[in-house]
């Protein structure tokens, strides 16, 4: 801890004090943390995300303390034209078009967004990293097959593809004999199918240069098997790009889920999702601003926070790009 503080001072006060400081060995992660903490914007983004995670985990207790159950309907909160009423002391964010508490639904919507953020990102990164490493390490026909698969997937119009997959599997008992069912699962599958390709390509490029490095040659000369080389020697050197890419792909996935739910093929009712709320709010935006404003702001802030966090992580891991 003292070492970290000293480095901060070093940077603040300049080289003049350099002589007074004892030089300490630091791990790359300590260096990362030092640099990251210095990025106030990224740190604020991280704080927001921690808060969001807490809100999602404790959505139930928070809703019952400050609002109402997310699916309870209060038709007496609609006026005689069926128009929802706005924020009040018992409905902090107003109600939606069937009289449900927008506050509670925004809280529960955070659960959906974070589930997508974690599960879909983890799956697509795992698939992308494994296939990318395999392609880059073995080259030859393996690389050709995987690279062409990536090219073909990338050639698809992303949103239309997701829309197709999601809507084909949203009817009745789903598709692939019920394996892919309407709702969260379908959305995750749709996102994963699209998103593994980006990281797959990046990792492949990294591996192509890594595999020529001396330490890999040494391992190979020592008789290590390909699997050992890939996972023991190459993978640890890819941690930085994987972490950076993951934090940058999370907001994309959240937006993609919102887009799918907005188009009606994502999260199924009555479960709340920000995208679905925005879709329902659009036709009545001029009479019920609160219905799009709050889920919209939640979506905006969340995506912004993940983007800023991603930038901060990248800067901290890769000082060459620091501004």
């Amino acid at each position: 801890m003292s070492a970290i503080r000293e480095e901060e001072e070093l940077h603040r006060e300049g080289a003049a004090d350099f002589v007074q400081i004892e030089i300490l060995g630091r791990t790359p992660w300590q260096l990362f943390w030092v640099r990251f903490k210095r990025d106030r914007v990224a740190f604020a983004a991280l704080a927001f995300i921690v808060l969001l995670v807490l809100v999602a985990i404790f959505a139930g207790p928070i809703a019952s303390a400050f609002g109402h159950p997310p699916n309870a309907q209060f038709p007496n909160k609609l006026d005689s034209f069926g128009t929802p009423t706005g924020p009040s002391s018992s409905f902090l964010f107003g109600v939606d078009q069937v009289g449900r508490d927008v506050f509670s639904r925004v809280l529960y919507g955070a659960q959906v967004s974070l589930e997508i953020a974690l599960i879909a990102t983890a799956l697509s990164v795992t698939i992308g990293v494994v296939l990318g490493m395999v392609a880059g390490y073995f080259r030859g026909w393996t690389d050709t097959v995987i690279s062409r698969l990536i090219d073909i997937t990338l050639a698809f119009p992303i949103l239309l593809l997701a829309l197709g997959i999601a809507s084909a599997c949203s009817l009745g008992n789903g598709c692939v004999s019920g394996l892919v069912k309407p709702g969260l699962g379908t959305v995750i599958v749709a996102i994963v199918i699209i998103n593994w390709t980006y990281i797959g390509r990046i990792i492949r490029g990294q591996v192509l240069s890594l595999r020529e490095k001396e330490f890999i040659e040494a391992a190979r000369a020592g008789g290590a098997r390909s699997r050992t080389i890939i996972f023991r020697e190459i993978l640890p050197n890819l941690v930085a790009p994987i972490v950076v890419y993951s934090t940058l792909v999370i907001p994309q996935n959240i937006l993609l889920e919102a887009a799918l739910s907005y188009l009606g093929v994502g999260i199924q009712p009555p479960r709340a999702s920000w995208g679905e709320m925005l879709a329902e709010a659009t036709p009545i935006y001029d009479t019920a601003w609160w219905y799009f404003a709050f889920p919209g702001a939640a979506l905006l802030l969340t995506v912004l926070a993940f983007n800023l966090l991603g930038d901060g992580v990248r800067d901290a891991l890769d000082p060459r790009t620091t501004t």
Partner: protein
Amino acid sequence: MKRRIAVLGLAAAALAFVAAGCGGGGSSSGVQGSSHTLTKGKKGGTITILSEGDIDHLDPGAAYYQFTYAITYVTQRPLLAYKPDSIQPTPDLAASMPTVSNGGKTVTVHIQHGIKFSPPVNREVTSADVKYAIERGFDAAVGNGYASAYFGVIQGAPTKIGNSVPNISGIATPDKYTIVFHLSKASGIFVAALQEPLTAPVPKDYAAKYDKGKSSSYGDHEVATGPYMVQNNAAGKITGYSPGKQIVLVRNPNWNPKTSWRPAYADKIVFKEGFDPTVATKQILSGQGDANGDFPPPAAQLKSITSNSSEKGQLEFTPTPGSRFVALNTQKAPFNNKYVRMAVAFILDRNAMRLTRGGPIDGKIATHFISPDFGKSGFDQAGGFGFDPFKTANNDSGDVGKAEAMLKKAGFKSGKYNGPQITQVADNTSPGSNTAAVVANSLQKIGFNVKTIPVQHSAMYTRFCGVPKNAPNICPNVGWISDFHEPQADLDANFNGKNILPANNVNWSQFNDPKINALMTKAETEINSEKRWQEWGQIDKLITSSAAAIPWIWENSPTLYSTRVTHGTELWNGGEPDVSFMSVK
């Protein structure tokens, strides 16, 4: 989505269903707030109608969509038609009302002399043109949606749509101006059905060449008998219709105003299509359009218009001849038990359901099926506003106590349903999706766990609710608008057990009660209208009490006119503006 597919028929044809928001038609017996009168308009000018979607077919033999009828009735003259202020049919092509003889089995109609087809045909209309028009409706190339249901009763009529134009022996044309229908049995609604566009004359000598093949192209070459015609060229090819974009009507030079009660003030009518309802409503308010075509102004705009004293007068409401209801699948558990259905009828928050469509401005809470604008032709006989077997004390917001009492009768000792999860297939867009959310929420109060499968409105009908083997427990977004003001057209298709079909089924409850089926079969042949309406009124009461389906709204259909419009009124059915009665400054 309102009124996307709308004029509904008895026929179990592909289009026979109410769309997500079919507003439907109005008998204009209840045109409100209107200084608009039917006559004394100003000649000349152009009327612009704004629409969201397109018509289904220009061909009067194929047209079956409510919005299309707004064009069909001003370009074609069926034997009978409705004046915008009446629910009783009036002679149009006919010279007088049909005479019924032989115990209801013979119907004779005389047609007017001197009515001519528009260019390029130009000749006088004869009774043979009406006969051909009806016959070609039974040919799959034309594919009429209601021919079997209303005209299948004619002797020699095919029981199903076939692959050629049949010669129907029961339609006789003893002279150029007389047409006689011989029916195989008496039909209480045959005369009313003569106002369907299928009876509008089609010249065989001109049309036969277009009727050949798999699909008739007469619609692209059709000739008119009404005051207007779709713009065409010298060869008769339609030039005024760009599907999905616009339809241009111009005056029919061969129309003689002395033979018609339509004032036909405007010189030209343009139907512009492809509008967003909100945008179109704003354009009408700013004078860029003159009336809304196939959509109602969205609820939020209705609210702002009705609360604006200068705009309020531009809005008219017409009641629709039909109702929206929640259909319960009576063929499988748990709704094969009458008491479980009745519990649903008591618990549904019909008030909240109505709020999903705009609240009281959208219509009255329905307490049975035959809607108020039927008046003394069925509504009063069904008990009028007084008949409400599932009345609750709280403004129709549902009653847990009464519902639980029914569930106890059904064998659920706690008064809560504790059987397996049930399924509803609902619209995936508002307002239907919201209505379904209210239904699910209401049922939850008495223990039901309702799984909602949201799909497109058309898929809801064609893949789920209209296909008995895929039918869910609940269809919350169905509704029906009758083709004309005869209760049979309102109830028979939806609730007669003989009408259950494996596909395109409109008896969504799959209701099959032998006693009620027999009462319907009897009422269908009753030609004394007073007795007939009495019988159907009783049938309505029995169906409603069985809770096979729970009606929840009798809708109004709103039409917004621009300030240029000095006279305007809605078509009898459909809530579309009747452009032959509109005039502009």
